């Protein structure tokens, strides 16, 4: 039983809109990640340019939301009153299969017991108190240590 969450979950594009395609992608039910428009290097979210060739050109390309748990934590306290999931909750850092990028996300399921290497697949969810959808994860069975 959790109290109704009325505050807005801070999901959505950064103030400079540089990552807007990622969030638009989630609205279209796909995972789009940044890739250098000049040299093709994939890069994590949050970086302003290509650290391999210093180009600002960016393509946003679809990627399979599947990977393995690189690490995880279980939050035992309600640090954020606006979070729409009950405490305790598990956050995983997922190493994607298709591209060399790691993404954070909440691991769904009833009392999940994650282990590093466990296979997970992405689930795009629209929290009722967020303006934008968020990428979350679900155990896929199997492991990839």
């Amino acid at each position, binding site marked *: 039983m959790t109290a109704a969450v009325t505050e807005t979950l801070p999901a959505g594009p950064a103030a400079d809109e540089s990552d807007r395609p990622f969030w638009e992608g989630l609205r279209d039910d796909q995972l789009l990640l940044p890739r250098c428009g000049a040299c093709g290097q994939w890069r994590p979210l*949050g970086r302003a340019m290509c650290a391999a060739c210093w180009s600002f050109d960016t393509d946003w390309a679809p990627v399979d939301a599947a990977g393995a748990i*690189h690490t995880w*934590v*279980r939050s035992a306290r309600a640090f954020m009153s606006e979070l729409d999931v009950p405490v305790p909750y598990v956050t995983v850092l997922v190493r994607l299969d298709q591209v060399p990028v*790691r993404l954070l996300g909440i691991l769904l399921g009833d009392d999940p017991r994650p282990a590093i290497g466990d296979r997970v697949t992405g689930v795009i969810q629209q929290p009722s108190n967020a303006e934008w959808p968020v990428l979350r994860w679900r155990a896929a069975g199997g492991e990839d240590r």
Partner: protein
Amino acid sequence: MSLRGTTAVVGVADIHHPRGKAPGGERELVLQGILEACADAGISPRDIDGFTSYAGGDHSGPVLAADLGVRELRWSSMVWGGGGGGAAAAIGAAAAAVTTGQAECVVAFRGMSQRETGRRGYAKYYFDNNYLPHGVATPAHVCALRTQRMLEHDGVPRSAMRNLVLAAYRHAQNNPGAAGYGKPLDEAGYDASPFIVEPFHLFDCSRENDGAVALIVVSAERARAMGRPAAYVLGAAQGAPGGYSALNENDEPYTSAGFVDSSSGAGVASRLWAEARVKPAEVDVVQVYENFSGPAVASLIDHGLCPPGPAAAEVMTVENLTAPGGSLPVNTSGGNIADSFVNGMGLAVEAVRQIRGTSTNQVDRADTSLFIGGPMAPLVSSVLLGSEQTL
């Protein structure tokens, strides 16, 4: 050019109150700290000509210079980025200024008051839209992510974290000023404490205090002329492997505390040892910043003081970590966990006390005393202090 032996810490102050209980404001606390450090050094506050700090405190050199009525301000620098990771770097910046003749008497300081800085768990001002939607909102979260992999993937045993905490509590029993004084902690008490962010129990987490800490840095020549016990700076380094940790969970040295690039071995730790011309095994006593116990263990590994992986268990016993008899005495005041926390700078003062021989958990003979700043931060730093015999 090197910092080795060119400067010394000649005065210190370590004021702390329970969180939210400081009688005055933060600026007043900082000024009190500086006055106490000046008195400890036997100098006039008017002699200060430089200020260094870290973690973005509000009290700049020009403001403090005016408050103190210094004759001339020659140096004012803030370590850029890394929060508590910059603690030792602030001392390094003071030493660099004095070594190069930019200034003569620099105070490295930090002040905190809950009423003004409002340091609560939820760091909404820091974490961005790649973190907050996933419930990752505090320093505990990002340190826990790296620590969990250090435990589960690298095989560092949880006992390493627990024993670091238990040793700190042992030390606190001899330090009447420590929050943990009179409150001994054993293994069962640690294990029974609730999780905050797993893998961190309550006792793995640092405290939070109101307070001010200040260290006065002058040239080694002047320190000798002052005829007081001085802690000479043998080496100082700051930085991080490129791309480490800065709002980015994609860096390669993921379970490093930031002091070494695991692929090349380069980094803050190796630069520190090279400058100081000291080997890890030659260090007599260590103060390691524990925002959380796990990152502190990673710091000891990064500095070559503890082996990585399962072998960490051999070094990280309570006996080894406890002064005076241990082979690696760590956090001899009780540290951030069992003594007090003013953004970790109190540890630097304890490092100086060990050289002076005035710790409440004094090691037999401390000629080399290491202070490691905040780990798993986007920028980290260390400083090695030494007695006159090491010069």
